[in-house]
Structure formats: C-alpha cells, structure tokens
C-alpha cells in the first residue's frame, strides 16, 4: 500500500485523515470538541507535514466537515458519529455510535451476562424507581448502586415498571434464565469501568447518571424501554412517559429543569431554558405549553433528590400573582 492512498487535501474527499480520525474514535470512543482539537491537528500535520497547523486552527467547522465525510462512509455499515452537548457543562461531545437495535448488549460486550443484568438494574433504578412524577432524579447514588449488585430474589427487576407488558417480558428473556448477584467488589469495578468508558458520570455528590455517550447510544433504547406508548389495550391509566426531550434542543433531559406544574410534560436543559426565557422579554415567563408561571426551580436530575427537590418557593404567593395577571 502506498502512503498516498486516496490522498487529497480536499476536505470532502475521503482520505487518511478521515481514517485516522475514525481509528481515534475506535480507541477513544467518545471525545469532546476540546479533546478532538489536538487529535485532529495532529492528524492534519501527519497528512501535510509541511503545513503549520495549530490546535486552535481546528474549528467547529473543521470537525463538522470531517465528521460529515466520515458519516457518509460509515452509515452504510450502520455506524455514525453523533454529537450532543453535555447537559452539565454544555461541552460538545462526539461519539462513534452503532446504529443497530440492541445497544445495551453493545455496551456490554466486555461484561458478563450477570454484569449486564446488573447494569439493567441500574438503568431500571435510574429511570423507574428514581424517576417518579414528583421527583425525576434519573440517577442513582453510589451506595444504592452497589446495593443493586444483589440480584432480586426472583427474576423480576425488569418488571419494576409494574405493568409487565410485552416489552419487559422480552427483556427478561434476554437477560437469561438465572440472574446471579454481582459481588459488591465487582459491582464497583463495573461502575468504575462505566465511568471510564464514558457511559456513566459520577457527580461530586456521588450520583451516577448517564453520560453523553450513553445518551447518544441509548437514545432510542431508553425511550422504547421506559416510555409506555399510549393506547395500550389493557391499560386503564394514562401512558407513562419517563423519558422526555428538551423543549429547546429536543435531546433527552436527564439533568435540567421541568415545568413547575407536575402534570406538564415540558422539560428543559438549564441552558436551553435560559435562552428561551431570555428571549421572552417584557412578558412574564410562562411555560410554553401549559402556560403555568415559570420559576425555573423544579429540577430534573440529582438536584431533584436534594432538599426535597421541589421549588423552594413561597407559600403560594407566586401563584397569587399568577392569577392576578397584572
């Protein structure tokens, strides 16, 4: 093979720079824009040693264009480089994502079946147990996470949803017949691996939540697993939507804000809400959907688990004003 294999400075042309970036994604799996910059700079220098390229020459535009070119090639293989903003710090984050159907097993190829079942228990806890109408925590505290290492007596962790519809049965089947507990030590290793691999974040307060990579890879899976579609024949109660998208950017919200009206489905990322309401000059801030007054103090994420997680407001004074409609 030659060093000039399909070589061209034209950014739209697929060449070694794209292959190298793809290999970087294979070994790093997830990179923020800031982490990408030096990598791409180095790749471009390798490509054209005579050109001087500084890390700060790498712009958003450079990245987008390379990613687009790569995606045009890997899409046929059901891979895609996706990007999303980290909900906590807004860092733009990129990951090479496998587009096929069963992403959980994909995450888990290096875990044993029992460990996969443990990861499912963690997800179930985050998105069912710890994600109620009143408190949408969507995270699990360190100690609890280790306790979940113990498998429930019967193989029922997937039924925590309670309604046991077909979806969950198939999950239980997938998990295999007998699920054994994971030793606490091994559970800690699994958790640490998930953090290292960029699937989980661990907060200062010790909560595990889904990191951008997991949100990108599991986007569809989470909704399919935890949101119950409306109009299920047998159910008398309303459809349950446990995973909601941001009113602003339309990405999943696991850390952010929600409408103070607990019946309302509006969710925001902090930043997206800020942007939206900043533009609402003059008028009072209201939820775009239910028109309830917006105070921005009802949280989604671990904040919802702290200090009651509810709006710390006043005893109805605000709602009085609300009705006054000055």
């Amino acid at each position: 093979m030659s060093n000039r294999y399909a070589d061209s400075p034209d950014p739209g042309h697929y060449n070694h720079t794209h292959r190298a970036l793809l290999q970087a994604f294979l070994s790093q799996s997830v990179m923020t824009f800031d982490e990408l910059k030096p990598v791409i700079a180095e790749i471009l220098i390798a490509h054209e040693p005579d050109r001087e390229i500084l890390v700060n020459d790498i712009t958003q535009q450079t990245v987008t264009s390379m990613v687009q070119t790569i995606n045009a090639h890997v899409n046929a293989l059901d891979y895609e480089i996706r990007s999303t903003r980290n909900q906590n710090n807004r860092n733009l984050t990129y990951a090479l994502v496998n587009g096929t159907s069963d992403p959980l097993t994909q995450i888990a190829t290096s875990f044993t079946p029992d460990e996969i079942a443990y990861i499912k228990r963690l997800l179930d806890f985050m998105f069912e147990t710890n994600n109620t109408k009143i408190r949408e925590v969507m995270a699990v505290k360190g100690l609890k996470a280790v306790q979940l290492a113990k498998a429930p007596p019967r193989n029922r962790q997937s039924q925590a949803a309670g309604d046991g519809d077909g979806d969950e049965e198939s999950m239980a089947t997938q998990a295999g017949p007998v699920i054994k507990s994971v030793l606490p030590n091994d559970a800690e290793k699994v958790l640490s691996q998930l953090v290292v691999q960029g699937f989980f974040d661990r907060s200062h307060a010790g909560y595990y939540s889904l990191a951008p990579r997991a949100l990108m890879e599991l986007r569809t899976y989470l909704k399919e697993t935890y949101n119950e579609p409306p109009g299920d024949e047998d159910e008398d109660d309303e459809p349950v939507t446990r995973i909601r998208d941001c009113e602003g950017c339309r990405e999943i919200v696991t850390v952010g804000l929600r409408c103070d009206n607990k019946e309302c489905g509006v969710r925001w990322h902090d930043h997206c809400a800020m942007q939206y309401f900043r533009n609402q000059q003059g008028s009072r801030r209201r939820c775009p959907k239910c028109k309830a007054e917006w105070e921005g103090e009802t949280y989604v994420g671990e904040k919802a688990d702290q200090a009651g997680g509810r709006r710390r407001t006043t005893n109805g004074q605000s709602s009085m004003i609300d009705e006054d409609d000055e």
Partner: protein
Amino acid sequence: MPPSTRKRRAPADEDPAPTPVQRSRRQEELPDDDPDEIDENEEETQGESGSGSGSIEQLAKGLVRYALACEYSRVPIKRQDIGQKVLGSHTRAFRQVFDAANGKLMDIFGMRMVELPNRDKVTVRQRRAAAAASDAPPKSSNMWVLQSMLPDAYRTPNIVGPGREPPEDEPDTEAAYIGLYTAVIAFIFLSGGTLSEGKLDRQLRRMNADRITPVDSTEKVLARMAREGYIVKIKDSGSGDDVIDYMVGPRGKVEVGKEGAANLVRAVYGDGPEDLEQRLNRSLGLGSEDGEAVHDEVSNAQPAPRRVGRPRRRDSDDDG
C-alpha cells in the same frame, strides 16, 4: 473479570444474517486457497450477489461489523465464527466475503484483518502442549485480528492511544494493561522466546508487580494476557514437577512483536549504551525460534521512538 476494553459497540453476537446454520463443518476447515472451494463459491453465489441479505455486499458489511466487535473485546476473528455468525447458509462465499470485507475495512477504516500466526510447536513439550490445546488447525490459523494500515505518521499516542483517559480518581487500567503486556512480551522475547515462570516472577517483582497491579492481581492479569493471546502459558509435567514457561502468543506477536519489544527497550534505556541496537538485534534476532518473518524489521528499522501503546502497526511484510 472480563476484559475491560475501552470501546464496544457492535456485540459479538449480533448478526445481520442470524440463523446459525450448521452446514458441514468440514467445509470451514478447508484451507483458504483450496481451488475447489473457490469454484464452488462462484457457482453458488452467482445468483445471490445482488439479493438483499444474502448478497456479498451485505455479508461483507456483517463481517466488518463482526470484526470490529471482536476487536473491541480482543477476541480473534475466527473462521468458524464467521461461518456461524456472519455467513449463515452462505459459508461457501467465505473467500469473496472476506476479501470484500477487508476491502471495506481498508477503504473506510484504514485497517485490515491480519492473520494470526500459528502457535509455536518447537520442542516436544510444546508440541504436546499445542496438541492439548488443539485450537490451532494445522495449516492456516484461520484467525485474524484487525490492524491499522495507516502510515506511521498517523499512529501517534494522541491519535490511537490506549483509549480514553479516565477521570482523575480512576486508575487508567487500560494503559496499565498495555504497559504490562508489552513489558512481559519484551521479557519473553529478550530471553529467547521462552521465559520460565520463576524468571518472569523475578522480573515482575522488580517492578513491584508480582502480586498486584493497577489492573488486577498479577495472577488474573497474566491469565487475561493468556486468554487474549498476548502470551502462552505452557505447563510441562513430564519430569514429575510442573514446569511452567511463558511464550509470546499470536496476538502478542502481531500487535507488539519484536519491534514493539525493541521500542520498549529503547524507551527504557534512552541514550543508553552505544551498542544498544546491536545488543537488541542479538537478543531478539538470535532468540527467534519461530523463524517467522513477522517482525524482523528491527534490524534496519529506524528507531522511531514509538511509545508503548496498543500498537496497531502496519506489518512491513504484509503477510496477511
């Protein structure tokens, strides 16, 4: 512990052409270059090449995804598994699909499936051990691993390093593991290709890694290295006592190789003794029992100080 690899997306068990079809096993054991097989391929696949899930194109895609999945968990790509998980009822199209997949891998990822060497069977003892292990068919190993074919300039630690840097309070076990297996492989190569358990233990003790490492207990780490094919553990009970030796495994030869071992030594010695290169050549060259020209580029390769990483190196001699 399962291998803690850093990237995993495509699972080993995912397959676009699922039904594992148990058609004649013997077919899979045919050597690659069996002329009959190729003829049959053409007959059988002619009518299918354009049709949906059975087309060469689709099967090749499946193989690419399977190969990437294997690489994530450091499992070799095995011919038999390709037959079951990718080809299904199309086992006869193996050659075509394999070549097409390698083409895609090269074109899109700049990587190729490179065949693993067979295990060494040099002494009686090793032959016996190999017979006991019996996973290597006599001729071709029928196993491959992915390897980067990009020019060296693109293979810097920043571009294809050991993986994601962990958050501050987490140990970088991936990097540690790569460092450890590279060191162990270097010890073995430098001892002429075989290293007794006692000597390895002594070396590890010098690094304070004889009992516990950042990855796991030494025992488990060595077991993982053996499982993933970096090293081979050979037990000989012929003389009454158990004698345990270590040799470099197939993946170790391809991924690290003598060149990797030499680079580790260069990195450790830095501007060491003047005759370092000569000594390296002698230690590594004379030690070569296998005679396989997989990594003999040491002698005239420029000592490009490549750092110890998980080397996805290009084989200079392209023997895949």
